[in-house]
C-alpha cells in the first residue's frame, strides 16, 4: 500500500533515459533543469542506486513467488475463502512492485527496466495460472470491475472484426519521394516551410534535403544515401538495407534495418528494433547555412547521443550484437552539399 501513497507526489519525472550511466555528461548539462527534481523529496526515492533497488526488487519477487507456491499447494477445501484474499494480496503486491519499478526507472539502466518488466509480466502470468488452478470454473472476481452500463461485450466487438477488413477510406500520401531508381533527388526547405517528408521505395538513389524539417518518414530503401538538414520532430526509418543516412533530429527510431550506416546528431537516445549490422557515427553534413538551420532547430549542440543507442531487442547488460560504433577509418569523413547541387 505504501507504493500507492508515493504517487501523490506530483511533477515526477520518471524517464529512465535521463540517468543512464552513459548519459552522465548530458545529465550534467541538464542539471540546472533537472536539479529540482533530482533533489526534491529524497524520501520518496530511497534507492537511487541500481544495486539497492535490485536487491529490494528481488526480495519482493521472492516473497511473491513463495506466496504463490503456498497458494498453489494449499489443498484444504475449507481454506478457499482465505485463499481468495491471499491471491488478492499477491495481486496487490505485484502492482506495488510494478509501481516501484516505474518510480525508479528514471535512474535504472534500460536493460534492468526491461528485465524487471519481464519479471512482473511472468509474475502476473503465474498469478493467473494459480488462480485458475485453485478456482477452476469461476472467473476470479477482481479480474474486471463490471460496471452495469458502458460495458462493451466481448462477442460484440469480435463481430466488428469483419469490418476491419474492408478499408473505408483511401489514405492520401505525404509529400515525398517514392518509387524511383538510380536518381539524385533534391529538395530545399526554405524559411517557414518546415515541412514533413516521406521517402519510400527507392533503390540506389541519393536524397538530399536541405533546410529545416518537422518530421521524416523513411520506408523501404535499398542501397541509398540520404542526407538531411535538421529535423525538429522525429525521424522514423523502417525496412532499409545497404544504406547510408546522415541525419540530425530530436528523435530517431530505426526498425528492421540491415547493414546500414547512420551518421547522427540526436537530442535524445536513438533507438533500434529488429536491426542487424547497423553502425553509428557522428553527424557530418555541411551545406551553406546549415549552422543557422541547426541552431534554429535546437540541434547546434553535439550531445554525443549518436553513440547512446538503445536496442529494444537486446535485454542484456553487454553490448548488443546488432549495432556498433563505426570505426573512424571506415567513416565517409564528411558530406558537403554544394549550392549548385541543391
Amino acid at each position: 500500500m505504501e507504493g500507492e501513497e508515493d504517487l501523490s507526489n506530483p511533477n515526477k519525472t520518471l524517464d529512465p533515459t535521463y540517468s543512464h550511466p552513459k548519459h552522465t555528461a548530458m545529465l550534467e548539462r541538464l542539471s540546472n533543469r533537472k536539479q529540482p527534481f533530482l533533489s526534491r523529496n529524497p524520501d520518496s526515492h530511497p534507492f537511487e542506486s541500481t544495486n539497492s533497488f535490485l536487491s529490494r526488487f528481488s526480495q519482493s519477487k521472492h516473497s511473491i513467488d513463495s506466496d504463490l507456491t503456498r497458494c498453489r499447494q494449499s489443498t484444504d477445501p475449507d481454506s478457499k475463502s482465505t485463499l481468495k484474499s491471499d491471491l488478492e494480496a499477491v495481486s496487490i503486491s505485484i502492482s506495488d512492485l510494478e509501481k516501484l519499478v516505474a518510480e525508479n526507472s528514471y535512474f535504472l539502466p534500460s536493460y534492468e527496466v526491461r528485465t524487471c518488466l519481464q519479471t512482473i509480466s511472468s509474475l502476473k502470468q503465474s498469478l493467473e495460472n494459480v488462480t485458475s488452478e485453485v478456482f477452476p470454473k469461476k472467473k476470479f472476481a477482481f479480474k474486471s470491475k463490471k460496471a452495469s452500463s458502458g460495458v462493451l461485450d466481448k462477442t460484440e466487438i469480435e463481430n466488428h472484426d469483419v469490418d476491419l477488413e474492408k478499408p473505408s477510406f483511401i489514405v492520401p500520401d505525404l509529400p515525398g519521394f517514392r518509387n524511383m531508381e538510380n536518381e539524385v533527388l533534391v529538395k530545399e526547405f526554405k524559411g517557414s516551410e518546415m515541412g514533413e517528408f516521406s521517402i519510400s521505395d527507392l533503390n540506389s538513389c541519393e536524397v538530399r534535403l536541405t533546410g529545416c524539417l518537422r518530421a521524416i518518414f523513411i520506408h523501404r530503401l535499398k542501397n541509398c544515401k540520404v542526407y538531411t538538414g535538421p529535423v525538429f520532430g522525429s525521424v522514423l526509418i523502417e525496412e532499409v538495407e545497404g544504406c547510408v543516412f546522415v541525419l540530425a533530429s530530436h528523435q530517431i527510431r530505426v526498425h528492421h534495418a540491415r547493414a546500414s550506416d547512420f551518421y547522427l546528431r540526436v537530442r535524445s537516445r536513438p533507438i533500434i528494433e529488429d536491426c542487424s549490422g547497423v553502425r553509428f557515427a557522428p553527424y557530418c553534413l555541411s551545406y551553406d547555412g546549415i549552422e543557422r538551420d541547426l541552431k534554429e532547430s535546437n540541434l547546434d549542440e553535439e550531445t554525443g547521443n549518436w553513440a547512446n543507442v538503445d536496442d529494444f531487442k537486446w535485454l542484456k547488460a553487454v553490448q548488443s550484437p546488432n549495432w556498433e560504433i563505426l570505426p573512424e577509418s571506415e567513416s565517409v569523413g564528411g558530406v558537403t552539399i554544394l549550392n549548385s547541387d541543391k
Partner: protein
Amino acid sequence: MGLLSIIRKIKRKEKEMRILMVGLDNSGKTTIVLKINGEDTSVISPTLGFNIKTIAYNKYTLNIWDVGGQRTIRSYWRNYFEQTDGLVWVVDSSDLRRLDDCKFELHNLLKEERLSGASLLIFANKQDIQGALSPDEITKVLNLEALDKTRHWENYWL
C-alpha cells in the same frame, strides 16, 4: 475480499482515476503527458518502459500511465489494463503508412475484457503537420464507427 483491497477500491472510487496512455511508438504520448503537466519537452527519448505522472485535477488525482509503444514492448501493455478508468489512444495523424498497424493494435486492445469498463479517448495528435489527417478522417480510417455506441469515445487534438 481482502480488507486492503476494499479500502483501496473505496479510496479509488472517491478520488483516484487511473488513465492509461497507449498508441504506436512516435505518436506523441510522452510529449502530451509532459505538456499537460507543464514540463519541458525539449528532450524526450522513446519510452523504454513506462512513466507515471500524478496530476491533481479538481478533487481528482489522475494517475497517468504513459507506456512505450515500440513493437517489442507492446506485449507489456496488458500489464497495465487492471483497474484502468480511462484509456487514451494516441494517433500520429501524419503517419499515414502505419494507420493500418494503428487500427489493428487499437481494435486488438478493445477486445480486452479488462478494459471494458474504461472510457476511451482517441487523441488525433500532430494536427499541426500539413499532411496530417483530420480527426474526422482518423475516425473513418480507424473504423471507430464500428465500435459499440455504448462505449464513449472522442476525438481530440492538441
